[in-house]
């Protein structure tokens, strides 16, 4: 038996955070119905990059990357007056209902938490959006890109002598779901013990700010705002990403202790400069860090990033090449953990894009799958799962209820 076998999720979420949350249930046996609409497909389905440039809801790399788990997909046109009754039947089926629409949307459809409770008192609802269900910003549209700007990380990702570069892509989109998943799994366990459901109001901003607690406390207590330091670290040197031989090849090196410094020096052949008193102590290396970094790069630039990493790690010094996508895909450690599994899909073909959770369980394997095609399970879900007679199904389909 699988950890979430028999757990039924009615998933109204789309784009990033929502599906990335539900994945953790799907990996481990939950039965999920993703509710979409052909009239308004999941924005991830219709965003670049596309397979061979084919614009369409089944060929988006981003969508596939965010959906590496088994789920069913139905289309339901929530704007149609007859859709609500169908939705209510689906809710009757579900244990958990998830959404990440702008607050008010589910209510508008008569599917707010109070409505759901009438159908199923023990229902668990998880609502995830940038600012939460209440407050002056609740109705504002939000995305992971912009949330990253106010996550605390954006202003401190950069070099001290120029405006910050900011985080790559929509970083917080991959952080908020982790908080959501933990909380939703806890809610499920709570209900198992007590019979009680609940409505989880997950504000992505409130979650990700927990990760930068020290910066917030520093501001409160010491009235200090953090500044970007490039790749430097307050109490380690050398600590940076150094240029290596070849086109845009780099290796991170991080030396934390006296022992590691000695090992580092030994690896690079104990050159004369390492014997200078000013580099002997941590304080000295920090004080002369510009010069130190030049010397280090003088050595690394003569070697490949792979060689730098191998020599340093071999001597017990932290080092890692700055992997580009080719390096990542070919990375032996990631391969060991089964990253980028290739799975068949009727429109995508067989692309190695499906990732596992960031953890492995010793007794419960995870399961991956390519995502469902839009509306793939309409007939099964509507006629078999919620028991619409065939004629009714065809009738409603003709009226556009399942668009």
């Amino acid at each position, binding site marked *: 038996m*699988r*950890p979430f076998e028999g757990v039924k999720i009615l998933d109204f979420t789309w784009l990033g955070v929502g599906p990335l949350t539900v994945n953790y249930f799907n990996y481990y046996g939950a039965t999920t119905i993703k509710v979409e609409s052909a009239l308004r497909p999941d924005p991830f389905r219709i*965003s*670049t*990059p596309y397979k061979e440039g084919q614009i369409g809801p089944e060929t988006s*790399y981003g969508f*596939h*990357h965010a959906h590496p788990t088994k789920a069913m997909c139905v289309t339901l046109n929530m704007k149609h007056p007859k859709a609500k009754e169908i939705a209510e039947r689906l809710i009757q089926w579900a244990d958990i209902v998830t959404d990440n629409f702008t607050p008010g949307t589910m209510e508008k459809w008569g599917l707010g938490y109070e409505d759901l409770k009438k159908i199923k008192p023990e229902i668990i609802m998880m609502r995830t959006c940038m600012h939460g269900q209440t407050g002056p*910003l609740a109705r504002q549209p939000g995305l992971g*890109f*912009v949330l990253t*700007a106010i996550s605390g990380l954006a*202003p*401190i*990702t950069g070099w001290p002598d120029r*405006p*910050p*570069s900011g985080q790559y*892509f929509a970083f917080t989109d991959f*952080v908020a779901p*982790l908080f959501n*998943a933990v*909380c939703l*799994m*806890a*809610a499920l366990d709570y209900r198992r013990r*007590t*019979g009680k459901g*609940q409505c989880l*109001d997950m504000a992505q901003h*409130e*979650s990700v700010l*927990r990760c930068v*607690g020290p910066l917030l*406390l*520093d*501001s*409160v*207590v010491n009235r200090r705002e*953090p500044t970007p330091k*490039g790749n430097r670290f307050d109490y380690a040197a050398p600590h*940076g*990403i150094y240029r290596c031989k070849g086109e845009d090849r780099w290796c*991170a090196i991080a030396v934390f202790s006296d022992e590691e410094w000695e090992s580092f020096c030994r690896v690079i052949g104990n050159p004369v400069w390492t014997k200078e008193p000013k580099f002997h102590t941590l304080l000295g290396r920090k004080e002369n860090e510009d010069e130190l970094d030049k010397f280090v790069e003088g050595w690394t630039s003569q070697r490949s990033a792979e060689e730098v990493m191998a020599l340093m790690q071999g001597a017990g010094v*932290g080092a*890692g090449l700055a*992997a*580009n*996508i080719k390096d990542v*895909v070919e990375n032996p*450690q*990631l391969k*060991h*953990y089964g*990253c980028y599994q290739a799975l068949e899909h009727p429109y995508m073909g067989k692309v190695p894009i499906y990732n*596992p959770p960031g*953890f*492995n369980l*010793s*007794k419960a394997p995870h399961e991956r799958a390519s995502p469902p095609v839009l509306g793939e399970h309409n007939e099964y879900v509507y006629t078999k799962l919620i028991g619409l007679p065939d004629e009714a199904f065809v009738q409603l389909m003709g009226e556009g209820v399942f668009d």
Partner: protein
Amino acid sequence: MGGEENAKGMLTPYRILDLTNERGYICGQLLGDLGADVIKIEKPGGDPGRNMGPFFHDIPDPEKSLYWFAFNTNKRGITLDIETVDGQEIFKRLVRDADVVIESFDPGYMDKIGLGYPVLNQVNPRIIMTSITGFGQTGPYKDFKAPDLVVWALSGNAYMTGDPDRAPLMSSFPVPYIFAGALQGAIGTMVALHHRQRIGEGQQVDASAQLSLTWPLSSEPLAPWLEQGVIQKREGRVWFRSQIGADKKTVFVGAPNIFQCKDGDVNFTIMAGPSFGQSTGALSKWIESEGMASETLKGIDWLKFEWQTVSQEVVDEFTKDFSNFFITRTKAELFEEAQKRGIMVYPFFTPREIMELNQLKFRNYWVEVDHPELETSITYPGSFFKTSEAFAMEYRRAPLIGEHNEEVYLNELGLSKEELLTLKQAGVI
């Protein structure tokens, strides 16, 4: 059913033994916030993580580390040297009555000292052991030194972050464990709890920060690589979307995500399509009303705009309009007006500016946590979730060194006062 009145949270019945160092603190903390009884076990004298700054009024003291404070609220604290014979016996007694052990030592350490999973499983077959590391418990990198920068580099994220004319970059903050590895460890722990509930056995959770970080790397660089062997790299404040060509030719079209404004920087991601095009449309209208819109910009219907087919020339036209407009306004002006108009513009806020946001104040996000030992209270970020269920949530400061030794060892484990004194003096506790 029922019988959990005034529960602290959803996970009230569970006890967690938290052996983590700074790489794993947040894992236990989230479970504690959800009501679990988290016992932070530190070496006698205190966890090395207590030496991490910033410090309260810059006083470097193990009871004044803001880093320690931030990630260890709602935990009880005991001291125990798990490398000693007496310490291991006590630890095993704790394991007998616990549900989860979380640790973030180097792979192999717990086995080496004789407290690996096979041993703990013997003591308590229901125990879940969650291990958080940079690269995972097994594999060719398992013995790698794994500081944050090294993990970040090997995850592929460094290469995509920063400016093209400079080195790959990490934020000036320890991201890999706190934002990825330790959080995934918490999820794994919960899955294992559900497994145990159904099947009756514990197991190991092997959380890897590197593996976790392949998620934020996203599919953006992966697609052009798979299609045509093209390697995408960091482009600073510009997002290069790939227009994968049917004729096997990939073109990249670059538009900034980050713009300079009068007094800082803002993120404005130029979204298009039926769901998010309104935001860009609203900005265009604003710019047009100020007489600063090019003909190109005026002619775009952002609900229908297609990134797959637009030319760089057109993109340069409208991004020039955006740049010229943003530079004339301050962060505050842009943010305020953006809310009125439904534009997704967000300034790069500092912690102070984040704490001034009305939204978070309205939600009662900030909590006052009492620090009697400092004779003050400090404002902390509050709960990461809100729920309709009425839990008696707590916000207790992080424990002092050995603060709950008596409570746990005398009251709960049943050691005598003499035994506690002996072990304390022998450096076991």
